[in-house]
């Protein structure tokens, strides 16, 4: 069998077209088998995840830079880091950034980078709302929602063994493709079940961190009141279940947790003083 694979590999190397057929043997299929074996031995481990995340985060910052306000950035980092400390991957290199963009959105990047837009932050009323959104994004990282989608996409839509090549060589063309794919994913969105899971577990993480657990539902109500035709929310609405549906699901599954932790601090004043335009 190994000899056959070797022969098939040699045949493929000899024929760039890869249309070459040995009698009764499908060379293309054998070549694919060889590639799949290669992929199976190259899982995306945590250092890979962090490295991919850094490259994707750098691209996102190419689409929109950070808001030029170090005080604001540090404030959001404190809130986010405190939340991340309450969950199962507390020692990832967590970093949080407010992007200079009027659209309302937030992004979770594999390996522990979370972005929120200025547009979304400006619609919030207190720190518990900020915590609710950051906790939702933190869950995406904890459960590797984007990483899994990148991996799946790389295997189905990128050529052949691009993933292993992209993981090995950070300067190569395959890497470039992988990171571009990973960045574009934020325009396509995740599975609905991933988003609803991030809502449910995000509520728990915000409650663990001592915040009013209704922060996330409050933001969802703000979003729900906005028009889907508004370009400020167009991308976010396209990539997420409708806010009304997300509220329904939280109401159905999380009412008890929400009510048990609804009297915790909202920190409206600290939020206002830390987020006002300087």
């Amino acid at each position, binding site marked *: 069998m190994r000899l056959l694979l070797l022969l098939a590999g040699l045949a493929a190397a000899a024929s760039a077209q890869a249309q070459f057929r040995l009698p009764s043997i499908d060379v293309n299929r054998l070549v694919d088998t060889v590639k799949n074996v290669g992929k199976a031995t190259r899982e995306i481990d945590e250092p890979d995840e962090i490295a991919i995340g850094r490259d994707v*985060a*750098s691209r*996102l*910052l*190419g*689409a929109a*830079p*950070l808001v030029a306000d170090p005080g604001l*950035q*540090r404030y959001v*980092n404190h809130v986010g880091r*405190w939340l991340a*400390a309450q969950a199962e991957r*507390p020692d990832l*290199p*967590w*970093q949080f*950034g407010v*992007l200079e*963009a*009027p*659209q309302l959105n937030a992004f979770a990047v594999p390996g522990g980078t979370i972005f929120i*837009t200025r*547009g979304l932050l*400006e*619609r*919030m*009323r207190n*720190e518990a709302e900020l915590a609710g959104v950051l906790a939702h994004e933190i869950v995406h990282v904890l459960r590797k929602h984007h990483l899994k989608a990148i991996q799946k996409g790389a295997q189905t839509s990128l050529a052949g063994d691009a993933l292993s090549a992209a993981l090995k060589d950070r300067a190569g063309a395959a890497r470039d493709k992988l*990171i571009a794919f990973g*960045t574009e994913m*934020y*325009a396509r969105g995740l599975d609905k079940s991933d988003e609803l899971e991030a809502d449910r577990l995000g509520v*728990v993480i915000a409650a*663990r*961190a*001592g*915040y009013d657990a*209704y922060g996330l*539902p409050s933001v969802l*109500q*703000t979003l*729900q*009141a*906005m*028009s*889907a035709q508004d*370009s400020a929310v167009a*991308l976010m609405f396209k990539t997420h279940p*409708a806010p*009304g549906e997300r*509220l329904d699901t939280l*109401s159905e599954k*999380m*009412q008890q947790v*929400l009510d*048990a932790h609804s009297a915790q*601090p909202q*920190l409206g004043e600290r939020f*206002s003083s830390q987020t006002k335009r300087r």
Partner: protein
Amino acid sequence: MRLIILLILIPLICWAEPATVIRATELKQDPASDSPTVAALAENAAVEAIERKGGWTRVKAGSAEGWVRMLALRYGAGAGAGAAKPGDTGITQLFSVARTGTSGTQVTTGVRGLDAQQLANAQPNPAEFAKLQEFASDRSAAAGFASNGALAAKQVEYPKP
């Protein structure tokens, strides 16, 4: 006299936000489920939302006033179906300004920023990435920040899948 009228009108303008209840709901005297019922609201009944306290929102329903479950409310006129009707951004913004006390988003329609096109064309920005790393907090600084805000860590289990 004019000032008094203005003072009476301001809370009405700033704080009442049109909403509907998505299911038949009891209007409670206080924000608690064991509080006396002021009125019974039918599904899709129109109300004006005034303020939120925990999981409860104070609303006006016709001449009655009381508290309903926050998660039973959907905002916007005719909001029962899910999204608000098109073209109400200006109204929402007004409320947003009132609620946040900040300037809110001044321009939302037809602006550039993070859209699908820009995500597709984005190039790496190492300079901004270096800043991002510089602003990061750490566990002990974050714990101090939490304690300044009287935030206490709690044990809360994840829901069963």
